[in-house]
């Protein structure tokens, strides 16, 4: 877990014991976590894990059953002092009946004071948003593009993207990642991106939250998380010497060469051993690690394509 920062001025979002219950299901189960300001946070988890519910409650689009949430130090619900600083376009966002993309963008320009019209126009060109098609008749990807553009051009101090790449082709997805990083570096702000395509967004993330069955499984900086496991490659017997009794996440044998991913950081002695035995250390993929961590938690031992 991240060391809790005591200074509230660095926190964008503080959630305390957040629970959201729908009839028979518990979408959020006593969630306590913080999102620091001016960072890109990843909210990862399987379908139905509670990602969208958490995002909805944090952005005041939904109400918690119990617990509290604060955004920039205040309760965001029905709070016009805080709400103009938040932008959350949902994955299945609805738009006014018969609206064209330009109607949605014009409305967003009026709602968000940091809105950058030049940036919006550039993105409209780059994502090739159709001008004369009503949003409801657009393809999945085109709809996603409209949402992504509103999220980026609004420059809201807290911007939330819920699986923003749905339906986008590889080129458009890359465009989104590029523009997000580029604009974020020029105008740092708090960004939360949910995803189940972990490896695709892992390079963006500074902080990773993994949610499963409404509970927080991981809440760490991307760096810390990456250090939780390591992949050792080399002669099988040498590899075995280094990894010892560690928990193995993944193992591949190619003749006498082994490629083993294990949980736990290597200590100094082991690192020396790695050098002596002429082994290679490869950083583990976030996806692999998270699949493992959530699988360990759940009774749901299904394969990794759940992510």
């Amino acid at each position, binding site marked *: 877990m991240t060391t809790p920062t005591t200074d509230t001025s660095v926190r964008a979002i503080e959630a305390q014991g957040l629970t959201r219950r729908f009839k028979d299901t518990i979408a959020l189960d006593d969630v306590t976590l913080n999102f620091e300001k001016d960072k890109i946070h990843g909210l990862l988890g399987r379908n139905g894990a509670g990602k969208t519910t958490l995002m909805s409650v944090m952005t005041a689009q939904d109400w918690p059953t119990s617990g509290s949430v604060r955004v920039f130090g205040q309760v965001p619900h029905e709070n016009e002092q805080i709400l103009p*600083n938040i932008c959350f376009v949902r994955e299945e966002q609805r738009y*006014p*009946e018969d609206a064209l993309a330009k109607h949605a963008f014009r409305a967003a320009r009026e709602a968000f004071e940091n809105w950058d019209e030049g940036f919006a126009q550039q993105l409209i060109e780059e994502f090739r948003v159709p001008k004369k098609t009503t949003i409801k008749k657009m393809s999945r990807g085109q709809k996603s593009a409209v949402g992504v553009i509103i999220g980026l051009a609004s420059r809201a101090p807290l911007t939330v993207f819920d699986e923003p790449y749905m339906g986008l082709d590889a080129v458009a997805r890359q465009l989104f990642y590029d523009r997000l990083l580029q604009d974020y570096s020029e105008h740092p702000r708090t960004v939360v991106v949910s995803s189940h395509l972990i490896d695709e967004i892992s390079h963006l993330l500074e902080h990773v939250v993994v949610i499963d069955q409404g509970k927080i499984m991981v809440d760490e900086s991307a760096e810390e998380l990456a250090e939780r496991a390591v992949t050792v490659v080399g002669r099988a017997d040498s590899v075995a010497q280094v990894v010892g009794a560690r928990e193995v996440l993944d193992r591949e044998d190619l003749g006498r060469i082994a490629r083993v991913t294990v949980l736990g950081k290597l200590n100094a002695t082991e690192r020396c051993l790695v050098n002596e035995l002429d082994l290679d250390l490869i950083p583990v993929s976030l996806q692999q690690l998270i699949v493992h961590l959530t699988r360990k938690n759940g009774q749901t031992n299904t394969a990794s394509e759940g992510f």
Partner: protein
Amino acid sequence: MTTTTPQPTLPHRSSFARVPAVFRLQFAVRYSFIWLPMFIFALAWVLGIGIGFFIDSQMPDRIPAEDPIFSTGAAQATIWYLAFMAAYTASHTFPFSLALSYSRRVYVIGTYLAFVVVAAGYGVATMLAYYIERVTEGFGRHIYVFGPPSFENLGGGFGIGMFAAVIVLFFMCFGFFWAILYRRVTIPILWTVIIGVIVAILGTVVVITLNDWWPNIGQWLTNQNAFTLAGWGFLAVILLGAVNYLLIRKATAG
């Protein structure tokens, strides 16, 4: 392009500062609440009068001044359309307003203001239509949609216009109510409410009939004019508007 970091603007601002933006949001798609209702109003009027002229042509012995033709039903078309559009703003524009991070309160106020303006527009159109029909004596053939001679005693053009505006406002709130209720509750509860409303209406009718109160009600109605009816209608609008706000406060986009 600015180069400043977007920081949360926490200095105090009016909590109603974005009401005008929501008002304009309702008119983002111009034709939904402006051009199409005007077109439907004109079309329904033309059709109503046209039907009147058709009937007139089938009655060669008719003396127009003694036997006026009323096709006031055509006046309803715009009301139904606007009730549906009000429902659409609850089902579609409301979730979008959440994405734009408007509070429910600001959304409801801006939306009601838009409804009031649309209803007032309908009222003005009705008043104009009323005067056109009065002045031309039902297009020279005593054929009326908005301006039957009897309306003169009810309050004249202004009274009729005001009554029409309140009726439209009520039905817009009514359309909005069902759409937002649908968002809030499950289908069985929705049906319970629908059946409850029907039972309440039938129950009232039964109670009135059993107690033989119909003459009293008839008397009460004849004592009303367009202004007092508009007043009662407005009371209903206020009540329904409050119910709508309570419903939308906890409504979600999901």
